């Protein structure tokens, strides 16, 4: 469908105005909300993500596309909720207690949103209890933990243990990342996965949810 192809291209170009206008037009023409999302927005962001991974564009260019998609999503979201259409996954993400670094975490959040996940960004310096509350409240199926310090990465284990102690560990896939963290550490603390960069975090989350 031409309108979906047009939406995809406008997401790639980061043309917010045209994405808004195109989304409205598509809805008026009777195109389904899910179709707009899955055949317009997400494929557009996939192209952008691939270009980024191939070092063809930088984050600022990717961000422009992500913003254009977000503008379109603001129109679609109420309709998706009304139709009972679930996102690809629901992710709570944050930097653990004692740690104030958030650039890496923000990038992961942006990439996940671009791939169709609903992202609840908890922020920085987040306690285990807060992670648990947000996960329950939002019925999230993925929890992303970030740490940049050797002395705060140990908090990731505390978060996982808190989920275990409260009988919630099986309800959520927990993924970890950050400079001092690696796959061995993720395994050691009982996380479900580790990602070394923002782009591969999307694939990891999808795999863990069987998407």
């Amino acid at each position: 469908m031409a309108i979906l192809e047009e939406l995809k291209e406008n997401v790639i170009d980061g043309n917010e105005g045209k994405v808004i206008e195109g989304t409205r037009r598509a809805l008026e023409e009777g195109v389904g909300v899910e179709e707009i999302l899955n055949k317009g927005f997400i494929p557009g962001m996939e192209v952008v993500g691939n270009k980024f991974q191939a070092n063809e564009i930088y984050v600022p260019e990717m961000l422009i596309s992500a913003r254009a998609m977000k503008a379109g999503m603001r129109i679609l979201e109420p309709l998706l909720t009304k139709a009972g259409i679930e996102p690809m996954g629901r992710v709570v993400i944050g930097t653990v207690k004692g740690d104030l670094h958030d650039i890496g975490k923000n990038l992961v959040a942006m990439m996940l949103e671009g791939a169709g996940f609903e992202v609840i960004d908890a922020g920085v310096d987040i306690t285990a209890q807060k992670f648990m509350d947000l996960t329950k409240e939002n019925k999230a199926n993925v929890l992303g933990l970030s740490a940049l310090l050797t002395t705060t990465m140990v908090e990731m284990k505390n978060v996982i243990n808190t989920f275990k102690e409260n009988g919630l560990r099986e309800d959520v896939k927990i993924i970890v990342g950050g400079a001092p963290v690696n796959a061995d550490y993720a395994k050691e603390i009982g996380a479900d996965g580790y990602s070394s960069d923002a782009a591969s975090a999307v694939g990891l989350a999808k795999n863990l949810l069987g998407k």
Partner: protein
Amino acid sequence: MKKYTSLVYKTAREMEFGKALYPVNCGFSLTIGNGKVLPEINYTLPPMPVSMDNIEEILKQYDSIINGILKRAVVLDVPGILLEFEHLPPMTDVLEIGVKITKRTKEIMKNFHEKYDLKSGLRVTICDTRDEKRPPKMRSGEAIKRIFDSFRENALAGADLLSIESIGGKEVNDRALMEGSIPGLLFSLGVLAPRDMHFLWKEITRIAKETDVVPAGDSACGLANTAMMLADRNYIPEVLAAVVRAMSSVRSLVAFEEGAVGPSKDCAYEGPVMKAVTGYTISMEGKSAACAHLSHLGNIAAAVCDLWSNESVQNVKLLADFAPTVFTEILAYDCRIMNQSIEGGTKDLLKEIFVKSDELKNVQAFVISPEFSVEIAKTIVQEEDDFLRTRATGLKACDLIRKAVDRGDIILNKRELSWLRKIESELAKYDSEEALTSEVAPLYGELTLLEEYGI
């Protein structure tokens, strides 16, 4: 307040490694910048929590680290060594933790001085925790009170040099880097960051004076090194990180205008600009900081350094020994080469090798060369205020990079070149701080509190 209007070193040739116009005396008979390059070793804990609950375990770690470092320094007969104890957030937040570590470190240093006549000094770098609340309260919150208390109490506990990697403007800078927003970067680096530096360093130098210790210097780590790391991961253009480095020199210089006397921080790659303007000593890090991060500046960073650092290494066991001990040895040998070249009369040649080996391989290395740094320094002192200085250094950096590209010295791909044009044209648009602030500040309204910067 001092206002620099001319340079101490007017040409790159005049600047040397191991020597500065104003050496610093501190600690146990340590003199920095008086003809020798000295190692500055930095270390951090292995993965473990930090709180008063496990303070004995933490002190045990530091005992082992400091003893290991100083023993190796004695064995290798270093002419002097600076130790940097860089606070982690809880060490500043909980006054007692930082103070206990400072005290214990100084006791061990004293023992080594008495027993082996080892010359040493202790730099304590307080953690800027003001962004623990968002938007950060730079002047009025609890965090700033704890920071100033920590400076004072650590000085009384034995710190010889006081430093901080302050984060004024970072809340906007982080976002602007990700967006590639040049007005946003000019606002963070030229408006917010210098204002915060004036506020902060006025007080730090006052505390240092009252406690009779040295107000050393700051680093644009949270601003320019964030850009460097993002560029190294291909997240933002290299040329953007390079221009941000040059622009960040202005905010770092403010520390000296407010009374800091060096040595500047090791991760302040803008150090050569500081040295050219002020004649104070600088610490630098390069290839021997590979334990902490990738660097395209491994050799060139040493060209005019007075202290040579490893940035930071965890206390983990390597085949030979624990990592801080091993890195003391690496730094000691790096310094021996530089000091031997000073003694043997080949220092100019070695400096040239340091510069030439990196200078044209990466634009981020190019902008910290002594030649480039002197040009940036000249640009700074010609301008009236911090905003105009920041804008002018950005434009000057673009101009120098473009000329190097035109000469064929530096190769930039099409994407980088297009970013260079964008940076240059957008910087040129803003010649008034007020106009920039009124246009840009609202875009970052949820991130920053202007009143916390006195705006």
